[in-house]
């Protein structure tokens, strides 16, 4: 990290503090005790610990948080949110950072948002997840074979993966639901 220009980071700190407050997360109440990090099962795979992510935001270094590996390694286990003595919802904070990093195209571990996108396409199309297609599309899009190549056949041998897509019989309600969410987002 290069030198920090205080006049540049202060507005960023203010912007994120307010944005998060609107979502019910008050980062100013975090006193950096580190309890969130102590209980985080994924901390060893992160570049910044959960506590450090909160600190980056307090300091106006949101860009570093958005470009971190941390937000994509977070398993959404809710341990941090359960144990924080200051009631900072770190798990939800991770969600909001993922959404913003994805929107601005700065995801450090692109495979994860690609997975989410592929998953949601399946839900939009069928109303439910079509696992076989999800796996195949994800493999193609990430241009690397599924990390666990033998999983598909293993699942199939137990009759757990289907060749046919699921049918929600929702009368197109889910497709319309997705459309309305898109309309509200303005794209």
């Amino acid at each position, binding site marked *: 990290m290069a030198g920090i220009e205080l006049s540049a980071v202060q507005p960023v700190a203010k912007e994120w503090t307010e944005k998060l407050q609107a979502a019910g997360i008050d980062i100013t109440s975090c006193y950096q005790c580190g309890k969130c990090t102590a209980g985080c099962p994924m901390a060893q795979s992160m570049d910044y610990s959960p506590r450090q992510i909160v600190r980056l935001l307090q300091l106006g270094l949101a860009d570093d948080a958005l470009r971190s590996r941390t937000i994509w390694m977070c*398993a*959404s286990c*809710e341990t941090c949110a359960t144990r924080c003595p200051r009631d900072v919802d770190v798990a939800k904070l991770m969600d909001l950072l993922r959404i913003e990093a*994805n929107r601005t195209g700065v995801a450090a571990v692109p495979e994860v948002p690609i997975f989410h996108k592929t998953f949601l396409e399946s*839900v939009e199309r069928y109303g439910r997840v079509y696992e076989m297609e999800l796996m195949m599309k994800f493999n193609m899009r990430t241009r690397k074979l599924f990390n666990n190549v033998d999983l598909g056949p293993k699942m199939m041998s137990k009759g757990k993966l289907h060749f046919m897509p699921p049918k929600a019989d929702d009368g197109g309600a889910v497709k319309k639901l997705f459309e*309305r969410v898109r309309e509200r987002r303005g794209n």
Partner: protein
Amino acid sequence: MRIAYYPGCSLDTTGVEFRLSTAFCANQLGLDLWEVPGWNCCGASSAHSTDQLLSLALPARNLAIAEKEGLDMAVPCAACYSRFKTVEAEVRQDEKVQQDVAQVIDMDYRATNNTRSLLEVFVEQVGLDKIEAAVKKPLSGLKVACYYGCYLVRPPKLGHFDRAEDPESMDHLIVKLGGTPVEWPHKTECCGAGMITLSPEDGLPLTYEILRAAQLCGADCLATACPMCLMNLDLHQESVNKKYKADFNLPVFYFTELMALTFGAEPKEIGLDKHFVNSLPLLAGIGKKETA
């Protein structure tokens, strides 16, 4: 007792044995599960990592259908359950959220009904006494590590039915089924969730620690309420053994499978043969004490 029922995507695919055993238990206990017609996927972590409104609207559509019917909702999958509880809480707290969600799903939804995990429905609504009375083949001698995982109990602000740290409802259930729950420290540790598949080197250590703790504490098997946890602990047990040069051979059950077995179900009819770690040798030994 009648309750709306949301199986969720996993129960038609990777968790089909959860569906089969749930149906068996409900039938034995006179629980009338009304499957939500035209139910849709809850969006899982993909939705809440992508768009907040979408992550609320997807579960809400299912809940709205149950609400219209005047029914509470029973959800077997712990991960879906957590999404449902989140929506329920947000809609109750915030009028703007309630309106936004109703507009997007094009249905009225005011969260006047309650989401309940299937474990809660059995333990608290059907009741442990009724369950005990239905047991024909107790799990005598079986030592079970009750694994709750993340979503049945966290975060506590959602108002779950059991404690966030050291929950015990499943342990009480196992006692009534004639088994012995083991004391162990990993009841609510995370299994690694989707990381096991997306990035095994980051996820497998978590699965390993859970299996190791269960074995060290003397468990013969694990019981869970989450298809994702089950897949990680069962399907990936082989990868864990390979990576850590370990020799775990710990069957992992849905709690409903253990219930169904004690009620007299045949292993095959509830899909026990669909697990990757073979549980049949272990099961062959249970209930022997009573008959011998």
